[in-house]
Structures are given as C-alpha cells and as structure tokens.
C-alpha cells in the first residue's frame, strides 16, 4: 500500500488570551492510496483542525507550529502559498460539515463549480459549465442543467452537500478531506451521501480522510481508523480491530456508550467526567482523569503510540495489563 499522505509529528496551536490551546499536539499517521481513513473523536479532539492543517486553512490565531505533512513524498508545509493554492481544490479537496455556511450564498451553484474549474485548469467558461452540469448529475442532483443557476438557499441540506461534493471533485483530486460531511443530515440522506462518496471514491480512485464522531458511519465506510482525544492520538487500527479488538480505554468507552438494545436490559456504560479543557490539560495521558483503569504512571510524561500488532497502535501504557 503506497502512502499518499503522511502526517508526521503535526502540532497546531492556538495562542489565545487565556493561554496556548494545543488543538493538535504531535500526531502522526498515514493515508494510503485508495483508502478511506476515519478520524474519530469528540469535540476538542483535534480532528477538524487536523484536516485544516493538511489543507493549510487553519484559522487565526491558530498556527501549525511543528511537524511535516508529506504529500507524494514532498513536505507540503514547506511549500509557498501560491503553490499550495494550486494543490488545494485540485489535488487535495475538502468538504465541510455545514454546506450552507461553506457555500457562497450570493453565487449560484453553477458559478461556484465553474470558478473552481477555471481557477485550476486552462479551459473556457462554456466547457466548465458543461462539466458542472455533468458533475451535478454525477452527484445525483436531478435536472442538473436547470439547477446550475439556482442559489444554495434554494437547495435542501442533502442537495447542498451533494453540490459541495461536486465542487470538491470538479478537478478530480487525489485526496478528499471530508469534515463530518453527514453529521448535519438526516439518517436517510446520510445513507445516500455515504453511498455516493464511496461510489465516487471507487470511480475516481480517491483517498478519503473522513472525520466523524459517529461510529456507525465508521463501521460502514472506513478501512483504517485514527482515534483522537484532546489533540492527541489514542489508537490507530483497521476498522475490524477497532470494533473487535480495541486496545484503548477511550475507544472501548466510546463503543460501549452507544445505546444498543433497550433500557430494560441495563444502564448505558458511560465515560465519567467531562470533555477535556484544552487550556488545562494535565501532564501525561489526556484521558487519564476519566479513565477507569488509570494508575499513577498515566499522569507522567508524554504519551506515545506503541505497537499492538502490525498496523495497530495504542497510546495506552497499560495494554499488556488490561488485555491478555
């Protein structure tokens, strides 16, 4: 499996009045060609900021302070902005969670797709418009020709997300970063969008980095999964081992807290405590304050990923004691 995108020791920090927020703190992982990698975590885990760091769209006052991101062997963090602008949208594309705020409300859908195509390729407006209609058809929007001239507010949530996928794929990118693309959608529309992205992934040979907190979505679409908490990686493994052989208390806690069956059968096993405050993270493992299995050593030093089995890594120092 060739690695298309390799993130190495990435750190993205926000310097705020109240202190430094380490939104992403020293993470490393790889995305293989043609693979769907899930980036799983809750709010504050750093999953969205990881995507934005990869595509170099980190909002101020955030800054990528350390690490390298290798795309096809070159460190894209070292590129000048005008080179990155050529790559962004053309080779590495991104779709967001809220299509209504990500799409320009004063431009028609057609104009937004044409803008992307013309921005990256040497082609005429007429050609670009023709391709836009084809793209809308590809993403399952009925009567694409007539809908090109409509505005985002005239589209439903599901349609807007399809339009955004169309824009993202307009220049046939190699990598698609999908930041919670179906979280805001109803379950039946989510189902359609997931199938659409998977079909397009196969058709275009895309590599997809899919950010989500929904383990059901992960089970249905991901090949590999990276679990994040408070800006750090807790576990990396393939999707089957994630559900059948997870080796981190946070991952296990997440899976166990999903309602399964009825309340008459027993209480939900919840993760105690609250989501971490990134301004006051303790030393050591960030999950330690909420972990059932924590011991003294868990709050010392910086955590690192340990090999569990080929391709399976966990940041828990108690792997051997907790699982045997």
């Amino acid at each position, binding site marked *: 499996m060739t690695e298309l995108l390799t993130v190495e020791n990435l750190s993205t920090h926000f310097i705020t009045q109240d202190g430094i927020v380490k939104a992403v703190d020293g993470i490393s992982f790889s995305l293989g060609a043609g693979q769907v990698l899930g980036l799983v975590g809750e709010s504050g885990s750093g999953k969205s900021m990881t995507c934005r760091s990869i595509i170099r769209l980190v909002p101020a006052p955030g800054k990528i302070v350390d690490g390298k991101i290798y795309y096809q062997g070159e460190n894209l963090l070292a590129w000048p902005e005008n080179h990155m602008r050529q790559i962004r949208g053309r080779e590495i594309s991104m779709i967001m969670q809220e299509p209504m705020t990500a799409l320009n409300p004063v431009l028609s859908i057609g104009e937004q797709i044409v803008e992307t195509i013309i921005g990256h390729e040497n082609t005429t407006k007429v050609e670009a418009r023709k391709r836009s209609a084809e793209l809308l058809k590809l993403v399952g929007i009925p009567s694409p020709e007539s809908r090109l001239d409509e505005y985002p507010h005239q589209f*439903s949530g599901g349609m807007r997300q399809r339009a955004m996928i169309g824009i993202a794929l307009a220049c046939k990118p190699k990598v698609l970063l999908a930041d919670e693309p179906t979280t805001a959608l*109803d379950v039946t529309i989510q189902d359609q969008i997931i199938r659409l992205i998977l079909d397009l992934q196969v058709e275009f040979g895309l590599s997809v980095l899919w950010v989500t907190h929904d383990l059901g979505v992960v089970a*249905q679409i991901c090949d590999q999964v990276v679990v994040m908490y408070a800006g750090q990686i807790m576990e990396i493994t393939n999707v089957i081992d994630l559900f059948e052989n997870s080796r981190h208390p946070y991952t296990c806690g997440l899976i166990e807290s999903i309602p399964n069956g009825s309340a008459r059968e027993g209480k939900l096993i919840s993760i105690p405590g609250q989501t971490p405050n990134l301004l006051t993270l303790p030393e050591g493992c960030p999950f330690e304050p909420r972990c059932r299995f924590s011991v003294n050593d868990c709050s010392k030093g910086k955590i690192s990923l340990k090999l569990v089995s080929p391709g399976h890594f966990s940041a828990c120092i108690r792997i051997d004691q907790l699982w045997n």
Partner: protein
Amino acid sequence: MNSDKPLVEVKDLSKTFVLDNSLVQRMLGKKPRFLKAVQRVNLDLERGETLGLVGESGCGKTTLGRCILRLYEPDEGHVFIHGIDIICLNNAALRQARRKMQIVFQDPYSSLNPRQKVGQILGEVSLVHGICTQAEVNSRVEYLLNMVGLGTDIIDRYPHQLSGGQRQRVGLARALAVEPDFIVADEPVSALDVSIQAQVINLLVELQEKLHLAMLFITHDLRLVHYISHRVAVMYMGKIVELGPNESLFAKPLHPYTMALLAALPHLDPRNRSAAPAIQGEPSSPINIPAGCSFHPRCPYAFEICAREEPKLTKIANGYFVACHLITSRN
C-alpha cells in the same frame, strides 16, 4: 384523577404555519403559503411510560411536542392532561396546569437564562410555582441539584461557566423542580458529546422510573429511541405513520418509511456493510404535500390508491397502528 384514562391524550391535533403573510407581502400581491407542520395527530401517554417520537427534520415532531404543551397554539384538536383539555384553558388556569407538564430543550446553550446563576434559575421556578417558601429555597435547590447528579459548587455559576452536559442537567432539574407528571424531552442529548450523552440518558431513565413520569422523548436518533422507549411513534410530514411497542416496531417495522429509516441506520458492524441506499429521493416540501399518502413519491411499494387517498392511522393489532394502504389491505 381518572385512572383508566391515559395521563396525556392528544386528539386530532393540527398546526399550520402561514408564510408570506406580512402586510408588505400582501400589498405586493403575494399569496400566503401554508406549511402544514402537524396534521390531525392522535396520541396518548400513561404515567411511567416513555413514548419515543422519531422522525427526520421537518417531520413536525418538535412542533407537535410544543403544541402539546401549548408553547405553540395548535389550530385544531385537543390535549387532555388528567382529563382536562388544556387547549381551552385561560392564562391563569394554564399556568396552574403547566406545573404538571414540563419540557427539556435540545440546546443547552440557549435554554438557560445567561444572566441568572444556577441557584437563581432553580430557585425562581420553585418560588413562582409556590413549591417552597423563600426560606426553603436553598435546601430546595440543593435537593434538585442532587437529583440530577450535580454538586452545590455550581449554585453561584452562570450557564456559560458550565459544560454542555452540566447545563443539560440544570435544564432537567428546572423541569423537575415543579414536580410535573409529564415531560417533553425534545432532543435532550443531541447537542452533547457522545461520551456525555450516555450519562444524561442514564439519568433520564433513572428519574423517569423513580418519579413515575410520562415522557414524550423526541429524537431523530434511532438507537437512542430504541434504548429509551416503551412505545415508539414514527412521524413523516406532519403525520404519525406507525405507532407500536418498541420491540415489535424495531424487530419488524411495517410502514415502508419505518423500514427505510431503520435500514438507513449505519450498522455498528464493519463486517456487515450494505451496498445500496435504503431509500431514494427526499421528503416533499411541507408547503406542497403530495395528494394521497405523503410518502408515496418515495415508496417502493406504492400502488394506485396511494396517490389518491390518504391512509388513516389504523389499528392492526393490540396497541399497534399503521397508516399504510398496503398494510391495511393485507389485514
């Protein structure tokens, strides 16, 4: 209290929102449009029972929940709480009745007054409804916080100083402060992180059992509704399309929409991946509801009568109702 009647009885409840009806729009010659949010809904709820109300966005479930509590005024229909139709009550009587029914909102950030400390939020509601005297307020607030698993250290905090989960617990404490019999929980955990949701759900189940509450649990989350409900009602475009016991409905859904909804839910099993989408298309606009069965344009089983005649919610077994020509014609 009449013990053979259900605690809550909703009869033929309807709510239509009128759009484009401002003075300016009418002067410009625009015709008003009618958004039929809730159409002739019938429901009932017993003490100690959770009725899960599930559906996708725009189906009318939130509007229904608010109409039942008269937070929106319904256009038609009746809501009987303890046998009294609250739709007919005047303001003073309604305020009295409101002690019996409360709501927990979805958004923990906007549902608490940002200018009041937790102690004031919980104290005020207890005083206004005469639950306790001024002298008793502090111990009452402590009791309420305890009930929802919060410590007294947050009494002097403002909502913005609490986490989402804590805020939601305060919202729950506020609802329970008046000792209601009936709670409408409108997506009470959707805005919370997954790891916190389980905590609040456990609390809700525990309190409902302890206080023998009737609960209308509104959500789009199918796993959650299956976990928490005794009975489940499925809504589509303002109407209930299926209503039955939780176990049976999930084991063998009857209405084609319920079937599609359950099929669309992503399985938590990576070895069991489905290939085709559960359903095509999108719901029609509630301003332009199709004739006959509102689901028929997307229904794989639709036949001739479905486009002509609206199916009525029909009893097909004890406690089990479906609004579908296909199902009722089989029976």
